[in-house]
């Protein structure tokens, strides 16, 4: 594997470290992470699609998008930008959404710090740390983003359970 995908959960610290290298310039990778029409092309694992409702890419600005399932049902993902260093770092506060895409003020929260690093050969390394706030780690599994992955791999999980 040349993309050096790393996914390391630290459950005790309620953190997940995710890292990946891309064969593209940092400018291109940055655009793909910050421009709505580009984000929509990769953020939703197939067969889900993504629809951006709000993307105000400023500190304090809101990013709200929906993961749309094949039957049209939507899972909302809400984040607020807490820090932006143009071309190199983005921090967001993720909040739980109701069915209409409204953030739930007292719901579980998560934080994601993402850093972009230019490396040799016109490549880019992206490092993300996701930190979950809640006492119970169950929250990380109902937090926006996990549901989609869960649904996607549902069949695999069912197979796994059936084989036991």
């Amino acid at each position: 594997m040349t993309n050096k995908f790393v996914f390391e959960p630290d459950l005790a610290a309620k953190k997940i470290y995710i890292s990946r290298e891309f064969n593209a310039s940092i400018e291109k990778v940055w655009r793909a992470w910050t421009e709505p029409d580009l984000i929509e092309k990769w953020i939703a694992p197939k067969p889900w699609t993504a629809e951006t409702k709000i993307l105000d890419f400023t500190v304090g600005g809101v990013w709200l998008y929906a993961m749309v399932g094949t039957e049209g049902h939507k899972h909302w993902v809400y984040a607020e930008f807490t820090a932006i260093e143009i071309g190199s770092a983005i921090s967001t506060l993720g909040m739980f959404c109701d069915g209409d895409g409204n953030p739930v003020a007292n719901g579980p929260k998560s934080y994601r710090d993402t850093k972009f690093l230019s490396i040799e050969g016109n490549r880019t390394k992206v490092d993300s740390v996701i930190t979950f706030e809640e006492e119970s780690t169950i929250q990380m599994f109902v937090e926006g983003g996990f549901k989609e992955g869960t649904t996607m791999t549902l069949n695999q999980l069912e197979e796994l359970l059936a084989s036991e």
Partner: protein
Amino acid sequence: MVFKIFLKIFAQPNNCIYICNQSVANYMRRDIYQAIADPTRRAILMLLTVGALTPNAIAEHFDSSRQAVSKHIQILAECGAVDQDQRGREIYYQLNIEKMKEIDRWMEAFRKMWETRFDQLDNLLNDL
């Protein structure tokens, strides 16, 4: 068992995700993640990796009161993280390895989602 029901809840198309998640959260009030959410409970689980122990033997490893430790053991049992084994007059607690594996499965699903996203991003970057 709980895990299968959890899957069933997730499998239902549901527009009202909040309610869906709430019901999942309520159903899972005692879940494997709650077992590992507390440092004392994690320490108890670590102790039990070596072998089964009685509540007294477990409590000896902690400064907290016997009652407090006993409460943690009770939660671990409710979460399914430990099983009871009656040996004569004594109750021994042992790790439920199968239950602990649930954590890995959930983590794997999350990992898979990010992997898929990044593969899709590779394709997009090729076209930019």
